């Protein structure tokens, strides 16, 4: 049994050497590398892919990895490697739009909820956010898909809407902390208009937290998009999508298991990358963690 006092007394006993800024650690670097790889794949795909990923060629069906098809071909004869490259595009695209949407809508509302003097306003916003929070992204996306027809757009919007509460709560709690500082209280008493306080003081202070949340939300968006595509509610064919690749190849699990491995690996890598990025940023920026690690 570990000696508890060791873990318990750490905060008190460590000497003050930590006045210096902490460098961005290995977690961040690893995350950045992985995300960079995904980004690279997407960017490269705009300029070049070994084959046209949408090109169906029945003669080339189900080939294993070889010099001409690095990762083989699927049941329609399409080159897997090209699909992976272009799939990266969709993944990142959905992530950016969904997270961007959520951040751009959720953050200001969260700030308003925290700064509003009228309790009714902040309460309503909070309750509304809780309601949306109760509806997971997948469910929303299925509903959207049912009504509007499945597409990348519906997936993005659904995931985006479902992620708003996370940013809202984060912005709200971060703003509340900033508002409680004496500096801000003085500014308020001096009559500085709320908008000025929000933009000049609140935003810069919560920016770090928002970025961290963004990275984590991105990872979740990637997962959601993969699940949606797998179910058929994401990007429709013929545009390549990692999730749909999994669904298309599931029936071949006994004969061509490798076809499942590549998209699975791609998804896992992308999610891992963004999570590590978020964790690495958190180590650097989150003041609450100062004492612990």
């Amino acid at each position, binding site marked *: *049994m*570990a*000696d*508890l*006092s060791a*873990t*318990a*007394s*750490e*905060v*008190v006993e460590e000497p003050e050497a930590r006045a210096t800024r902490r460098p961005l650690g290995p977690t961040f670097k690893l995350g950045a590398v992985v995300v960079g790889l995904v980004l690279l794949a997407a960017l490269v795909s705009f300029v070049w892919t070994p084959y046209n990923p949408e090109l169906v060629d029945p003669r080339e069906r189900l080939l294993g990895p070889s010099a001409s098809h690095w990762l083989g071909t699927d049941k329609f004869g399409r080159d897997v490697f090209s699909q992976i490259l272009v799939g990266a595009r969709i993944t990142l695209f959905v992530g950016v739009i969904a997270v961007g949407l959520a951040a751009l809508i959720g953050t200001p509302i969260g700030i308003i909820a925290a700064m509003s003097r009228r309790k009714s306003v902040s309460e309503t916003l909070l*309750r509304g956010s*809780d*309601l949306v*929070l*109760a*509806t*997971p992204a*997948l*469910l929303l996306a*299925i*509903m959207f*898909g*049912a*009504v509007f027809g499945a597409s990348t757009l519906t997936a993005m919007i659904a995931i985006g809407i479902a992620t708003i509460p996370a940013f809202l709560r984060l912005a709200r709690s971060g703003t509340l902390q900033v508002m409680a500082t004496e500096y801000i209280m003085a500014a308020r008493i001096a009559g500085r208009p709320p908008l000025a306080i929000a933009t000049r003081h609140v935003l810069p202070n919560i920016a770090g937290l928002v970025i961290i949340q963004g990275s984590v939300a991105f*990872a979740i968006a990637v*997962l959601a998009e*993969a*699940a949606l595509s*797998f*179910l058929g509610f994401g990007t429709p064919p013929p545009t390549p999508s990692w999730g749909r690749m*999994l669904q298309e190849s*599931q029936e071949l*699990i*006994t004969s061509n*298991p490798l076809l*499942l491995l590549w998209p*699975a690996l791609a*998804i*896992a*890598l992308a*999610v*891992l990358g963004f*999570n*590590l990025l978020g*964790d690495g940023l958190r180590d650097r920026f989150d003041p609450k963690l100062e*004492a*612990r690690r």
Partner: protein
Amino acid sequence: MSPLLRNAASRLAVFFASIVIASILIFAFMSILPGDPARVALGVNASPEAVRALHAQFGTDRPLPVQYLHWVTGLPRGDFGTSYVSQATIGPQIADRLLVTLWLVITAMIVSIFIAVPLGILAALRHRRMSGLAVSGLSQVGIAIPGFVAGIGLIYVFAVKLRLFPSGGWTPPAEDPPAFLKQLVLPVLSLGLVQAAILTRYVRSAVLDVLQEDYIRTALAKGLGSFRTLVRHGLRNAAIPVVTVLGLQLTTLLIGAVVIERVFVIPGLGSLLLDGVANRDLLLVQGVVMLLVVAALLINFVVDLLYTILDPRLRGA
């Protein structure tokens, strides 16, 4: 009225209000769906009289608010209406499927708790040593894997290669217990292991936070051994944030089950939903979505209540 009761009462009110608002939103949303359910049912060449008759039978010729009220008042009685597409009552379908999904979800929840709590505590106690870092790293990888990917992977290893478990299907437990159990293993693991990875991180974080607190030092200064301090003072307090996450987990599991049911071909609520969408069975989709949302709201409500019970500071003295 004691503050605790007042608190619970107001939460209850909010809960019911949320359900009503959700029902309105869901109904309104599904009503946007273009297309005429009667025409879909009867075919393109149906005569106008037949269409009108069917409309009258479905009740879809009435104004929307009336339709809404009719639908929403039936829900508490378990009356989800009759499908335009399949002509079958929706309520019983949902009930059957719900049971299946519950088996999956609750078992997965239990599995994930049994794995995550000890591992999370271990990771917290040994957070600077190899074992703690290893658990941390493992959980990091675990959360990067979507449940359905894990499912496919498990199928490959245990069903295809090792032939230990079936790759899907479902038998009711009463019919054939051993077959039921065998079919349960892989889907539950797919759902549960991934959730365990997420939960481990939360447990670790909660325990680490609590161990920094001064009252842990006080407990040690009293002469309590490390183990007893952890259990009596640490875990009781670390449980508070963990319980919130458990609630979230349950909701996530419910939704994750939707995908897993696809992977393992299990006739649960999720596949009912997806089938409904594929068949454009409006009313069915409406019903299932409503049920899932109510479940999520209910879980949140219970967690909030639990929170108040666990943490005396929230009882509003």
